[in-house]
């Protein structure tokens, strides 16, 4: 494993810890509705009338999570394709340039 891969793995573990940490040590409600953010506004301005509403709302929590997943997986797919493609190209180019090192390079791994 090269140094960069190692750094990336360590960074990823820190990200996971950052996300898991609140679950273990903080007992919150985690989520609820988006309306909670507007509660504070209602406290400051009780007479404020919400004058516009979303044109379309996901009919249920399931549909909403579906759409969020679609959004996330679309992005992940593109990222994985671009980086995977470049990785393969780089490897193929290396082997084209130094065909003799092919066996030694793969043996190292």
């Amino acid at each position, binding site marked *: 494993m090269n140094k960069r891969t190692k750094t990336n793995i360590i960074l990823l573990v820190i990200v996971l810890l950052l996300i898991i940490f609140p679950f273990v040590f903080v007992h919150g409600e985690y989520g609820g509705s988006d309306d909670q953010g507007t509660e504070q506004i209602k406290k400051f301005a009780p007479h404020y009338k919400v004058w516009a509403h*979303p044109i379309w709302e996901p009919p249920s929590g399931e549909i909403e999570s579906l759409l969020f997943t679609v959004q996330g997986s679309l*992005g992940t797919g593109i*990222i994985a394709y671009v980086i995977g493609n470049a990785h393969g190209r780089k490897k193929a180019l290396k082997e084209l340039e130094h065909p003799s090192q092919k066996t030694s390079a793969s043996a190292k791994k």
Partner: protein
Amino acid sequence: MQFKKILKTLLAITGAMIFFLLAFPTRVQAMHIMEGMLPPSWCINWYVISAPFFIYGLYRLQKIIQSSQKNAKVMLALCGAFVFVLSSLKLPSVTGSCSHPTGVGLGTVMFGPGVMSVIGVIVLLFQALLLAHGGLTTLGANEFSMTIIGPIVGFLVYKLCRRFKVNRSVSIFLCAMLADWSTYITTAFQLAIVFPDPHAGVMAALIKFLGIFAITQIPLAIAEGLLTVIVYNLVISNDLWKETALQ
């Protein structure tokens, strides 16, 4: 070596984070400004302020697409995809509520702050139309905080860090983290101006909104910074992009 520096920065930020947590404990969901939550005059105001940045973004986008820079279009797609992924992740935070990262740091590092205002609008529109998250009336305001202030702050931080010869990964980490954080600080300002505390005024409201938005965002901003470094490292190590490109 670079890892040690990141660790040190992290420790410092964690210290600050714990201080803030103890200072202002709140438990509210932190998100973009929801549909209809700003009065019409303010909606128009933010649209007007954001418009020139958006037009500049289009100009920059056209320049980049026409440039002979290798992989420029592919990298644009990658940066857009990164914003898509990160803004779809509602993550739990130490305040006991959830919020999501913005993902604008990666594109800012690669292309400068202009382009994100265009890419960001696509994501904001997706969420406003399909997820009832954010809104069309508040699009200008959310655009201003997430795709204009965030990237500009991130870009300045990145340039400053590079000027002072800070290690590249650390610079990117700080850029993405502060771009994320400043977005939510801006949101707090935007709400505090419109909805001041009826008894204590704008400043009191600002502190309250900062407690809601900025505090929840601290660990998420750190996570976003680290994720941005990972993706950028992968991009560089696979010869997709050179750091000196377009800069």
